[in-house]
């Protein structure tokens, strides 16, 4: 199975297929459906220093080939994660990666410090792209300076693999990627959700309590793919690509556009076994095309 091995910073993944934060719970929710050890890694729910209740219901609106969400980082805080969740998930035979969030730079740093010494958390994903919180989140991800400052501060307290998750809600995503690379990010993951909205015409009301929310699912795939390609041409660090992946073919497309690894998000809701089906599909594709190592496909778009 070495044919599927890829590296992201100091991390060695058994395969490039991982699951996206906020769409896979803590992994437990999927153990009835799949063997988690078949995944390259799992990005757990967005975690903050303090507990958060998230936004009011309704937090979801279905759209054509996708959905809007405005969950707003509901979680029980990093202390609860350490005491109640970590002891349980550290037994899983795959890389468990925590998605770190905050309202201020200090929050991000403190949350990172709390996770830094955990043996079985080999990496964090710094979420500077959540569109659903009033403070922090995407604010950090839409300017080069604030993104760079945040990564610099977190890098100081974190030696393990640091992945920075980029927002697509910017004019030039490659510019932000370059800014975080310069501050020592080991990898960038992209994309987070696109800011969108949905309206109930009959009631003349927004469908989300927050009016706007983040769009995900197959409808965003072409834009996400284009952004991965743009970032691939700009940076040297490995890219973790995502946005609407729903089958192995989508995954191969993201790899060809320059992703070293991929994450599956919203489609886990429709098909909870999709992630392992993608692993199988990638292998079959490699057999068919006589490819020895998945690394030989990264960025190999023929044009």
């Amino acid at each position, binding site marked *: 199975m070495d044919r599927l091995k890829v590296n992201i910073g100091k991390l060695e993944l058994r395969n490039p297929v991982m699951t996206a934060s906020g769409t896979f719970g803590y992994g437990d929710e999927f153990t009835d459906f799949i063997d988690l050890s078949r995944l390259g890694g799992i990005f757990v729910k967005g975690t903050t220093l303090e507990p958060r209740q*998230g936004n009011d219901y309704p*937090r979801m609106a279905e759209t054509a080939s996708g959905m809007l*969400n405005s969950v707003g980082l509901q979680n029980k805080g990093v202390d609860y994660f350490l005491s109640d969740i970590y002891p349980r998930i550290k037994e899983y035979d795959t890389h468990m990666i925590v998605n770190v969030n905050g309202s201020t730079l200090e929050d991000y740093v403190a949350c990172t410090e709390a996770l830094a010494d955990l043996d079985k958390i080999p990496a964090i994903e710094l979420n500077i792209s959540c569109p659903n919180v009033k403070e922090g989140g995407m604010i950090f991800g839409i300017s080069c300076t604030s993104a760079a400052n945040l990564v610099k501060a977190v890098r100081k307290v974190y030696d393990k693999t640091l992945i920075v998750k980029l927002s697509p809600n910017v004019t030039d995503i490659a510019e932000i990627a370059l800014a975080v690379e310069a501050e020592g990010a080991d990898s960038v993951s992209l994309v987070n959700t696109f800011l969108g909205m949905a309206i109930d015409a009959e009631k003349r009301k927004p469908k989300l309590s927050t009016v706007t929310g983040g769009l995900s699912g197959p409808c965003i795939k072409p834009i996400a793919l284009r952004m991965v390609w743009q970032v691939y041409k700009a940076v040297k660090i490995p890219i973790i690509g995502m946005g609407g992946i729903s089958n192995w073919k989508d995954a191969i497309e993201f790899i060809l556009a320059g992703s070293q690894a991929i994450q599956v998000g919203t489609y886990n809701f429709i098909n909870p076994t999709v992630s392992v089906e993608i692993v199988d599909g990638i292998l079959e594709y490699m057999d068919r095309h006589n490819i020895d190592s998945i690394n030989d496909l990264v960025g190999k778009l023929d044009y």
Partner: protein
Amino acid sequence: MKQKLDFIINSNDALNKQIFLLKVSPKNGAPLPDMYPGQFVHLLVHDSSSIFLRRPLSINYFDKEKNEIWLLLLSAGGGTKRISEMKAGESINLIFPLGNSFSLPKPRQKILLIGGGVGTAPLLFLGKRLLSEGFEPEFLLGGRTAIDISQLEHFERTGKVYTTTEDGSLGEKGLITHHPVLEETKFDKIYTCGPRPMMVAIAKYAAHNEIDCEVSLENHMPCGFGACLCCVEKTKRGNICVCTEGPVFNIKELKWID
């Protein structure tokens, strides 16, 4: 244990223009696991970009002998309409069984099951289970008009049935919450499922009369198994997922009354 499985539609009968009864069994013939009243299935609607997410439906009845699940479906929008058009012999993918279930009453408690419209769906399964556990369930079923009340003959075989319709075409005329049985009889436990305003009114009635009451919520559900945190209800413990910690809640947990 939750599973994702292909089912075959054994039959799909229109009970009226908008309500359908589907009976489905696993395509591979595998015996169905134990399921409990209040639990639901999450159903994939094929080949449509506008209907992207699965649709949740209560388990209307579990026929263990025939290895068959019954689903009572109201054609409410695009997704349910598509399901209603499916024919016997076609296959359909379900994630099931999901959610918690109604709790059993205490011995000798006097119990009433109140269903509005297609909200009666989980109450048939619950009623049958209560009967088999030695209870004597009674039912109060309501709708806008007589044909909105489905499966009456099944309910009548399960216990005493009271009905109301808004137009008076069956049973008492008026709203379900005004049925005289609620004044005349002292119940110890009420289970209810239906439109939210109806359930809130019943919850208030139950709280006021100190009757233990469980409701089944229908929040919108992208995943159905706790992965997305979109289906939350505000409770006394904060925002919690209706798909895993519900859909059945004791009204004491909710913030409906005060």
